[in-house]
């Protein structure tokens, strides 16, 4: 199996400069819709789904490899290698910001720039560090996931995920975007929210742009500032946009900030 098949890679655009978009926890590549519109005319855009999400190959899920963010970073690097990408602009949302950080540390020569949207190196509070969540909060998330598995995701999603050759089933699903395999989603939640990559930040040598939203419940401003302080030479832009997904809720502002950096 190629990395392209495994991660449902799609390549779009007229430009030559490669720009790879990595979606965050809970979604898939469809979340980059507005970014694709904005950058396709002068970039070579690479979209993909993390294993377990969207149209990825579920059989490629390896509990050991995907039991940590490094495994996801290695997936990204395999895609880059397979497509022979160099001078890559990596755009990572949420957990994928850290996945990009790890990938760039492992193969710095491959990356030209990193754009980190709503990054957090550690979601759990530790003494002196405010990630924003307690362990109980995050266990609560797993409960919500379980409850939702029994709704649409639990009853319909497996049917769809198990029948990739019958796309018409997907039409019947009432929430047809951002499909994930429930069991993998559960594990990915743990990997995402219990990772601690604070010590990796100073090891980044690629130029970094941090996009920080106002009132981001997942990655609060203090966390964005922490990332900025710990990645040498990084640039931090505070957006007027609120929430956790500025590339969806305020695409124009997000695109402007990215263009200024690129």
């Amino acid at each position, binding site marked *: 199996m190629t990395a392209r098949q495994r991660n449902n890679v799609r390549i779009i655009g007229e430009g030559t400069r490669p720009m790879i978009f990595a979606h*965050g*926890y*809970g*979604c898939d590549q*469809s*979340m980059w*819709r507005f970014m694709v519109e904005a950058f396709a005319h002068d970039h070579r855009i690479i979209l993909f789904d993390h294993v377990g999400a969207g149209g990825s190959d579920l059989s490629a899920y390896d509990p050991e490899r995907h039991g940590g963010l490094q495994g996801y970073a290695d997936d990204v690097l395999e895609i880059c290698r397979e497509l022979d990408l160099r001078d890559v602009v990596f755009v990572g949302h*949420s957990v994928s910001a850290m996945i990009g950080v790890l990938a760039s540390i492992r193969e710095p020569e491959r990356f030209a720039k990193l754009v980190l949207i709503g990054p957090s190196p550690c979601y759990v509070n530790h003494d002196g560090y405010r990630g924003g*969540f*307690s362990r*109980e*909060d*995050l*266990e*609560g*998330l*797993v*409960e*919500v*996931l*379980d*409850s*939702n598995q*029994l*709704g*649409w995701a639990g009853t319909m999603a497996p049917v769809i995920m198990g029948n990739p050759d019958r796309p018409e089933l997907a039409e019947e699903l*009432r*929430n*047809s*975007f*951002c499909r994930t395999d429930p069991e993998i989603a559960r594990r990915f939640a743990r990997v995402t*929210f219990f990772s601690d990559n604070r010590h990796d930040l100073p090891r980044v040598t690629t130029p970094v742009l941090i996009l920080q939203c106002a*009132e*981001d*419940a*997942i990655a609060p401003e203090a966390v964005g500032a922490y990332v900025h302080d710990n990645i040498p030479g990084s640039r931090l832009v505070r957006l007027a946009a*609120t*929430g*956790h*997904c500025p590339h*969806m*809720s305020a695409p124009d502002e997000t695109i402007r900030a990215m263009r200024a950096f690129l």
Partner: protein
Amino acid sequence: MTQPPSPGALPFESAEELYENAPFAYLSVGTDGQIARANRTLLAWTGYEAADLVGVKRFPELLTAGGRIFYETHVQPLLRLQGTVNEIAYDIVRADGTVFPALMNGTVLRDGEGRPALYRLTLLDASDRRAFERELQAARRRAEEAGEALRRLNETLEETVRTEVERRLRAEEALRHAQKMEALGQLTGSVAHDFNNLLGAILSNLEVAERHSDERGRRFLANAVRSVERGEALTQRMLAFGRKQRLNPTRVDLAGLVTGARDLLERSLGPGNRLVLGVPEDLPPALVDANQLELALMNLAVNARHAMPDGGTLTVSATLESAAGGDPGGLAPGDYLRVAARDTGIGMDEATLAKAAEPFFTTKPAGQGTGLGLSMVHGLAAQSGGRLALDSQPGEGTVVAIWLPVAG
């Protein structure tokens, strides 16, 4: 203004009244989460006043921490991408901090330019359904756990049974082998004993006849005596296997004995083969019949010669070893001297190895093998309080080890 309804007329209904008292909670929420409007049903379910919520709280504040994360990571993107969300299971936090389960649907309302302006959220009380789901989930988990436990039990059961059966089979096999050797020993010993007596009688009669014979007769008689003597040598080996041999165990310095036997061993081994001796000087003495041990080593050298028709090396060595309790060969715990003869010959397959020490077992053509070599060595080792150990594989050579007790 409103007239009381006249008898028989339908009660008054307005869209407003329907909105406020619908069996769902209605919420209009800005794209930033600010609550812009809430119906009376929501207020009743949550225990808030409208003034506590509208323009004051954001919708995610009505959720648990886990729910807030889910809202930001799943619900918001879904609303943006497909314009609606369906049946999101949430716990809603009431004003007093208690929670109730709800199912949420949501739709995006757009402004004049088509941009998302409001989310209209409807909440359905899902207490019953969630309780049912929880039960279902718990039942499923129990079923899975039971299945898992059963599977694990089955697996370990198989494993336990297999190892136990193997252990017993091995023990039985060892016992069966020991009993067989014992029975063979008894039989061989008593036959050899009777034969020996017969040979003794023949010999003394031959001696008498010799005195009464002429020159020519004596030549025939001398031939007869030699045959009787060969017969006696054979019966000695049979007696040795049967542990009926009269042994004369003494403190034996193995280094001295083996070096002294070098010539004998080299001759037994034949010209094409190399003999290597490795017996340290400082070993404690063994308690064994020195002549018999020499004879045993000679037998091993002959076997090695037959096993190395194209030439090879026989290494005779000795080491000090200790046997723990439960030794597979039945050795009593204690210190032993292990005299080993290792050859680089053709080796033995499993079937040959299993029978090699039995008396009269031979794979050699008549005239070359009697099948009494290893059985004699076995008998000597056993009668001396030690044991014989064979290790061999086809093509890998053979190690014959004689374990002997240390002389106290």
